[in-house]
């Protein structure tokens, strides 16, 4: 298995945010991590990336515990902008190139030129949407085994959503796995191989997208709405 979460628990103070989460993901899949706001999606993603310590349980990525080896194989897009605004596009590409052996500089420049972004452009003068695109390009320019994308299409217009989804789908290796959290299920449902529903820190459903559609006779979006109806 490429990703294994075993009995993962996380509390924020007295509040349990992840409750005994168990996930196993093989290579070569596109997986949707779906849940309402505050259901624990981002917390789980942060834990896999080593940004949060666990209270209980274990996470293995490609057989490695969270650390240098796991980080070598994960390409992570957080839900916020993590780039240093004082840098230029060239600076940040050099930064990625220095730290990630699997980073393809040429691919990054090519993808950025499609967006009409120049190497000398400063991140500080870019719009929020443009910064998010630069970040996506950086993440997808790695030949990683596992791409973890936290709300990659959150708060953007439908045209940009299409661009983001196209960039993701046309830039990952067939053998890699994508774990993507989102609310915009209808936009991504056609590409999903596996679906994980998370609610109140617990995994309530984890199965193949086709099986879910077949058994329910509904789209994943409809199943989600039914499952999480307020």
């Amino acid at each position: 298995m490429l990703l294994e979460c075993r009995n993962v628990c996380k509390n924020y103070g007295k509040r349990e945010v992840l409750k005994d989460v168990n996930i196993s993901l093989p290579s070569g899949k596109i997986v949707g991590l779906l849940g309402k706001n505050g259901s624990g999606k981002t917390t789980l993603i942060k834990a896999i990336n080593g940004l949060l310590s666990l209270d209980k349980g274990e996470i293995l990525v490609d057989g490695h515990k969270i650390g240098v080896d796991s980080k070598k194989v994960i390409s992570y897009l957080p839900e916020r902008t993590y780039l240093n605004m004082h840098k230029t596009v060239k600076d940040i590409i050099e930064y990625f190139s220095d730290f990630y052996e699997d980073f393809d500089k040429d691919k990054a420049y090519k993808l950025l030129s499609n967006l009409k972004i120049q190497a000398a452009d400063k991140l500080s003068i870019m719009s929020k949407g443009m910064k998010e695109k630069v970040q996506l390009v950086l993440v997808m320019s790695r030949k990683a085994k596992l791409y973890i994308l936290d709300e990659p299409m959150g708060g953007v217009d439908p045209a940009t959503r299409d661009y983001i989804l196209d960039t993701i789908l046309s830039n990952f290796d067939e053998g890699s796995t994508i774990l993507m959290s989102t609310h915009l299920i209808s936009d991504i449902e056609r590409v999903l191989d596996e679906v994980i529903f998370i609610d109140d820190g617990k995994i309530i459903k984890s199965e193949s997208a086709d099986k879910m559609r077949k058994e329910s006779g509904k789209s994943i979006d409809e199943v989600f709405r039914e499952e999480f109806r307020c």
Partner: protein
Amino acid sequence: MLGQVLKYDLKAVCRYLIPLYAVLLGLGVMVRLLGFFDNISIIAIICGLMVVALVLVSVFSFVLTGIFSVKHYLENLFKDEGYLTHTLPVKKETLLVSKVLVSLITLILTALVLFISLLIAFYQEGLFSEVIKVLGLSIYGMKVYEFLLFMIFYSIIGYLTTILMVYAAISVGYSKSSNKLVSSVVCALIFYFAMEIIYFGVLSVIVLIDPAFISDLDNEVFMMKDLISFFTIFMVFTACIGGVYYYISYRYMNKKLNLE
């Protein structure tokens, strides 16, 4: 990887320091240039003000250097930038060692720039030979340059321990779920008072072992080597406390990281 991390950390901190260095050197040049015309009263007043400004900036330059190191530590590891820093395939100790080295390097850089600035402002012919003569003098059984080197080394240890204390306080404070900054400040105060208590304890032990030690420092039999041994005890303790702060920072970053 340490080299790469160090390169980017240094670049980030130097971005803040370069304006400070420009001001220091600029003031040095201004004092020197205005000094040529100090027979004109208005220029003499401006020159005097420049000297005051140079002294003030000189005094605060080390404080600012420390603040910039801490600001970088906080932003690079515990704010939004931390999402990138902590997902790099780099060991936590490498991240931490780099931050400590940057504090040391920038301290030395600031001292160097300050020295050059003061030299530009106040250099006079024969200054170096005069300084060399003074450095070679012997006071209370010790050469001046030996004493100066000791005090510089002691100051560096003290500076790094203070920086590590703030790093540790931030690491502990930012592991909490809420009120992270307030928790960091509270931690820093606790660490500071704990350090003071330890120093007081060390002093008490010295007095208990040798009751005449402190009074000897203040009478005619005073020798510089006594003062040095007095400071050496404190330097060793300061270094050990610095080591403890390093461990706390590492432990919290490695086991209790909480980028909520």
